[in-house]
């Protein structure tokens, strides 16, 4: 029998991105013994890549911003299938979480009067993104990392967890392995927080990091937790398209926030085309290019340029331009920031300047960039309670990108980083409270044995290369669950995905267990296939187009589907799709839309 190391905590936090770190801080501060596990080194999580900023209505820019406007913007951006109470809590608490970050040592850019400076972003009516140049994620993660370390958090780095342990439906810990030795490890806990991020790696053209393979959502799914709105995947309109080696790498929305304009091969500033302006935003954006130009220097008396429409709108517009034969040489659009001048660009967008200079042989102060949509964010995920982040399984909490509720059908830029802070904290507090109120569960060794066998199977005579299988998953998702979906395509995609699923028992790991990427990829693929199936099935279920889900057979929003979230559960080895009603808005919240919707 295989041996394993074992640890015991009140609260186990899986994931050390922004959400996991903030959860660990909250849990420790409530007096719970807390273990923090991440599959990379501390400070390297996907959160580190975030660029543009963290949205919170601090109202520092002499504009009448407050939580109500942020609430309305987020509901609108999410096309009204977000959980309204989640959005309410979020919009109300985000400012405090940002200010608190400053007290942890974060150093944000300032306004002339010394407050935190805020920049405009797509879908936000006012300047609302608190930022540090274009490396806000790094600032956020490093600040939280230092804070957690100062609280003496117990960190287990480069440990991959693969299975949640259950006692009669309650989550009581998790099992996995230590990367550098390949040895197994078991964590027992009274409560578990999942903060493992998204699953953008399921697609080839993606801005996401290595880690985004959906492990946490898949583990929760397999353990019986409900997933929601899995069809909602976000395409960021501006990823690099050239050179091929760089395809998908993000070009931050801050480029457009700072005045970047999009043009097609004819030189048209196509976002001004009437057909691309959604009804609900009509009248809120600059009328013509002259107004957009004036906006650069006078934000008060002019409206934002349409390049700052929500991401789904801009991504679709670029796609349509390319389809119509008006794309750039490498199949995208041009993004131009030259008019802001070299000094300004280098000060406000230093890492973008560097990224194109180094990797794309292009000086963005002198030349236009070429951009096209890239997979960026997963709005769907583990269904989580607004107040506590509790999942449908007792003892299990979910926060951050792996959770679902806040962003609806489309996330607004900047809303993720503040999401991590608001709900990371709430999940940590609730988990600590649950741990106080409950005795440890009972562990039956059988689950551990089953998982051990399953983890070791790739060493026993299979013949499927996990990297190739991963690549097949990416082809399927890209072709059949991409930016434009059809019934025939989804059906074909599902058939292909099920064929890949049937090959999973034959996965083969080369070499030994110590720090072995092929072995790690074996499990990643299992997770991505499960979530991929859920996405394909959920997409076919939602018979309308909404936000990130553009369904060509049903090109319009439907009133019926406006009231439903799609659910997915894993029962007896099968993915079951259903739906649940979108929770009602309270009368106070409803009143915020009077005459505006």
């Amino acid at each position, binding site marked *: 029998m295989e041996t394993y190391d074992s640890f015991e905590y009140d609260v186990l936090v899986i994931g050390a991105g922004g959400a996991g770190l903030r959860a660990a801080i909250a849990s420790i501060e409530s007096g719970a013994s807390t273990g923090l596990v991440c599959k990379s080194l501390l400070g390297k999580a996907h959160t580190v890549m975030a660029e543009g900023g963290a949205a919170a209505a601090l109202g520092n820019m002499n504009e009448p911003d407050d939580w109500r406007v942020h609430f309305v913007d987020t509901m609108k951006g999410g096309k009204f299938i977000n959980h309204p109470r989640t959005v309410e809590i979020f919009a109300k608490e985000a400012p405090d979480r940002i200010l608190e970050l400053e007290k942890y040592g974060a150093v944000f850019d300032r306004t002339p009067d010394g407050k935190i400076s805020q920049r405009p972003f797509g879908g936000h009516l006012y300047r609302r993104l608190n930022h540090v140049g274009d*490396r806000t994620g*790094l600032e956020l993660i490093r600040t939280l990392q230092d804070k957690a370390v100062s609280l003496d958090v117990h960190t287990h*780095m480069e440990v991959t967890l693969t299975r949640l342990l259950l006692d009669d439906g309650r989550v009581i810990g998790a099992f996995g392995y230590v990367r550098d030795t390949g040895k197994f490890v078991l964590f027992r806990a009274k409560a578990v927080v999942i903060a493992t991020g998204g699953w953008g790696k399921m697609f080839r053209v993606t801005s996401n990091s290595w880690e985004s393979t959906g492990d946490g959502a898949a583990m929760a799914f397999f353990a019986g937790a409900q997933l929601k709105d899995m069809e909602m995947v976000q395409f960021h309109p501006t990823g690099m398209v050239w*050179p091929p080696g760089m395809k998908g790498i993000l070009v931050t929305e801050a480029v457009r926030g700072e005045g970047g304009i999009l043009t097609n091969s004819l030189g048209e500033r196509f976002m001004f085309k009437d057909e691309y302006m959604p009804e609900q935003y009509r009248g809120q954006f600059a009328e013509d290019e002259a107004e957009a130009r004036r906006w650069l220097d006078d934000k008060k008396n002019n409206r934002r340029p349409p390049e700052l429409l929500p991401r789904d709108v801009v991504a679709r517009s670029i796609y349509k331009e390319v389809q119509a034969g008006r794309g750039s040489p490498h199949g995208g659009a041009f993004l131009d920031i030259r008019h802001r001048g070299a000094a300004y660009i280098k000060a406000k967008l230093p890492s973008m300047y560097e990224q194109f200079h*180094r990797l794309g042989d292009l000086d963005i102060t002198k030349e236009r960039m070429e951009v096209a949509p890239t997979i960026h964010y997963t709005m769907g995920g583990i269904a989580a309670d607004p107040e506590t982040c509790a999942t449908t399984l007792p003892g299990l909490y979910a926060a951050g990108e792996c959770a679902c509720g806040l962003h609806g059908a489309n996330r607004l830029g900047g809303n993720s980083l503040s999401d991590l802070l608001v709900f990371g904290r709430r999940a940590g507090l609730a988990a600590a409270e649950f741990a106080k109120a409950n005795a440890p569960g009972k562990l039956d060794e059988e689950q551990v044995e089953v998982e051990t066998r399953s983890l070791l199977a790739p060493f026993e005579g299979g013949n499927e290369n996990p990297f190739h299988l991963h690549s097949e998953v990416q082809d399927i998702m890209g072709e059949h669950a991409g930016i434009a979906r059809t019934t025939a395509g989804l059906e074909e995609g599902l058939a292909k995905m099920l064929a890949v699923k049937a090959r999973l028992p034959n996965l083969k790991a*080369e070499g030994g267990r110590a720090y072995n*990427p092929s072995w790690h*990829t074996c499990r990643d693929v299992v997770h991505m296939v499960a979530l991929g199936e859920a996405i394909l099935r959920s997409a076919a279920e939602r018979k309308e187009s909404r936000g990130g889900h553009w369904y060509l057979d049903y090109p319009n929003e439907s009133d019926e589907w406006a009231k439903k979230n799609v659910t997915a559960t894993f029962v007896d080895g099968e993915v079951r799709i259903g739906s649940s009603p979108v929770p009602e808005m309270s009368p106070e919240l409803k009143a915020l839309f009077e005459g505006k919707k």
Partner: protein
Amino acid sequence: MAEYTLRVFRGDAKGGEEREYRVQAAEGWVVLDAIHAIQREQDGSLACRWNCKAAKCGSCSAEINGIPSLMCKTRLDALPPGPIRVYPIKTFPLIRDLVTDVSWNYEQAKKIQAFTYDPKIGDQPFRIRQRDVERVQEFRKCIECFLCQNVCHVLREHQLKDHYFGPRQMIRLAGLEMHPMDIADRAEMIWQEAGVGYCNITKCCEEVCPESIRITDNGIIPLKERVIDSRGLLRVLRGLVRRRTG
């Protein structure tokens, strides 16, 4: 498509060897793409550490043709013709292939007193001038790639890890000390425990920093001046004598 030859170190703490791989690369590929291609097509057990492939996380440090670099920021077509040697960074113990045990850096970080502000400020948001945050922001660009730690001769040649925290932690300390709202006094610790005196301003660290942080000019030198100011020149001299003779 162009063909490249890579000579990659394979092995673990017990020993290892260089192995040669040929890779077909698309335009714009970086060294990390080539390593991934090897994993995918030739040897799935080749170990390397990476996260972002966008020069943002500082995971993929290696020595490429002997030069400490990020694998995801080094284009294949920017390297001189001929085989490309890819080795793990040298200063830290090897785990496997291109992966080293950098946990020492995390241990040192724990010994640094975190940001501390005046409790009298209470819930009031900070008011700070942009000019004042900029100095600190330079240090906060650090992605913890530990390339500077890797080249600092105090750690690399002299293995004085018990005496000197290294350039990465020096700029962390500089960032805290120069933070306009920080009130902690770390001078004694910077001198004694962190060992700032061991740095003799060779600037090798600055040369490899992928974030172009001016580690010595803007960080370590002002830090030294500060420490000397606050501790008094005499005590510093005494310390120096003790160190020479001790």
